[in-house]
């Protein structure tokens, strides 16, 4: 099926400094695409180009196959939920939500009906006459979402909409947003630097860094099969090493690391190739005695308690460290104990190590 939105070779610079260095991406109908990256990676600039508030220097924006690069924002039916909500301070809740409908000359009875219905959807019914400046952050956020959603946008753009909320409220709004997007079958482009948010909400994640796309994939793909060091490092906690593929046999690939040999599922790398190795702390097992799957030994250096998990740092023979979030089967190893470190081959991700 043709994607609803597609970007081809987008480039943008501000006063000579390249912000976007050739971006290609597509959004499927009903898809929830997240642009994930550290601040300054160009994701907001990209969103502004999609919304039409900015023109790219090079490249094209397509909507259902039609070139809309030169179309001003008011002629695209893409609405945006801004980071700071950007509600109209001189209007009340209902007037804010009705703004776009009024511009589209929707007759008053229908307008009123749609505003009421949308406010019900974001659980803001009965607040129509309130001044938006008197609302809490969570309520303002709901109004901002209602204002954008009431127009049945072809694409809903969200620029870190939950960034200003506290953790608990953010989790709640995340769940509501996910439910709303799937109920209305909205096609969304979502910006965040919060990987947990991205993993939870998205059908597709686009990992960005320094104006380039590092990896595109489903949440499972980018988390479990990072394509490069940046993605492996940025998404989730990780133990990252450099190694050399020794041999591959029966779908299992042996990789030599400075402190031992780890086995991974065959991911198409040839013997002798340099690879990056990513092992999530959640998958690292520590045992007192050597068990199946252990590949090296080390000494417990520190333990840190975080409630639901306990993070153990183990110093390895070559001087490096490995982190583990797992609880051992028997007695927990104490600081100073020697332990065997193990990991299941299916949980070891390999990626091509780009050499500078």
């Amino acid at each position, binding site marked *: 099926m043709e994607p609803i939105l597609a970007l081809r070779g987008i480039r943008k610079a501000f006063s000579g400094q390249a912000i976007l260095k050739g971006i290609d991406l597509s959004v499927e109908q009903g898809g929830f695409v997240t642009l994930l990256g550290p601040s300054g990676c160009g994701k907001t600039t990209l969103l502004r180009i999609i*919304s*039409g*508030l900015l023109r790219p220097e090079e490249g094209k924006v397509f909507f259902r196959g039609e070139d809309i690069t030169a179309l*001003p*924002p*008011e002629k695209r*039916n*893409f*609405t*945006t939920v*801004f*980071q*700071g909500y*950007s*509600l*109209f*301070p*001189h209007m*009340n809740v209902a007037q804010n939500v009705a*703004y*776009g409908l009024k*511009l*589209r000359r929707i007759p008053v009875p229908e307008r009123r009906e749609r505003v009421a219905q949308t406010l019900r959807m974001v659980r803001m019914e*009965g607040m129509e*006459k*309130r*001044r938006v400046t*008197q609302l809490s952050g969570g309520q303002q956020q709901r109004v901002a979402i209602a*204002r*954008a959603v009431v*127009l049945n946008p072809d694409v809903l*753009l969200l620029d870190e909409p939950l960034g200003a909320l506290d953790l608990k409220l953010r989790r709640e709004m995340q769940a509501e947003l996910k439910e709303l997007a799937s109920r209305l079958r909205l096609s969304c482009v979502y910006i965040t630097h919060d990987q947990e948010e991205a993993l939870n909400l998205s059908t597709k994640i686009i990992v960005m860094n320094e104006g380039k796309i590092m990896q595109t994939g489903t949440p499972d793909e980018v988390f479990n099969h990072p394509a490069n060091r940046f993605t492996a490092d940025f998404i989730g906690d990780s133990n990252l090493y450099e190694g050399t593929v020794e041999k591959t046999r029966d779908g299992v690939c042996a990789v030599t690391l400075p402190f031992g040999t780890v086995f991974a599922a065959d991911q198409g790398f040839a013997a002798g190739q340099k690879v990056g190795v990513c092992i999530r702390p959640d998958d690292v097992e520590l045992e007192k005695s050597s068990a199946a799957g252990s590949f090296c030994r080390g000494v417990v250096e520190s333990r840190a308690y975080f409630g639901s998990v306990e993070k153990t740092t183990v110093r390895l023979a070559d001087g490096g460290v490995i982190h583990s979030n797992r609880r051992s089967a028997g007695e927990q190893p104490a600081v100073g104990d020697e332990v065997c470190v193990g990991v299941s081959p299916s949980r070891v991700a390999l990626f091509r190590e780009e050499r500078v």
Partner: protein
Amino acid sequence: MEKPSVWGKLYLALILFLLYLPILVVAAYSFNAASSGAQWTGFTLSWYKKLLEEGKYTQPLLHSIELGLLSAFLAGVIGTAAALSAATRAFKTKGVFESLSMLPIMIPEIILGISFMSMFALVGLRGGMLPLVLAHTTFCIPYVYIIVKGRIRDLDPSVIEAARTLGATKIRAFLTVTLPIILPAVLSGCLLSFAMSFDDVIISSYLRGPTSELLPTKIYAALKLGVTPDVNALFTLILGVMLLLVATMAVTLQIRKILQRKVDAQ
């Protein structure tokens, strides 16, 4: 809140006394039967009657109002446009632009007056309403500029972008979002401009010409012959209208506030 001390109250009373006593005196003497001097000889309304019947201040008053409204409107438009571009656009000569916009406030009025007169004479413009409006607009622009610019600083540019993404053209976004948000500042700039224009004597006396007598210049001329009680009556009338306007505005705002608070409390 801490209660003001006796000294604080006394200080406040003194200031209010010094500020408003002269005004009260003028208002009181407009009802004085004596035709001159400080002697109180009885209550009368005859000065008001004389003022209205003679009507020698009517034409100048109308001229002054016309001039004030025109200058305030033009200064409002130009000052707002200048403040908007200074606040939202980046250009190389911005510093120069901002200083130049404020300069008319710093130049002594007498110099402004003479400069305007010579320049208008140079282009063949005789004294009258047109040069008056041009000059008054010029010296009123900085007041609008400074007030509106202060307000724009609180205007989040992404609010305007939000309007654009919701379907508003640039003009529509300006009319429905930018303007309503900065309107209070624009109006107070205009109000101040009107007041500045309405009581200007110095610049106006260079430019008014024979046909456009203004209230301040007329009164100034009349004062050479001593204050007559009908001028007191005129002052009192103007003062009364001003008070009425201000009071109406304050009451309206207060009522609106109370109504909105009721809604918020629901």
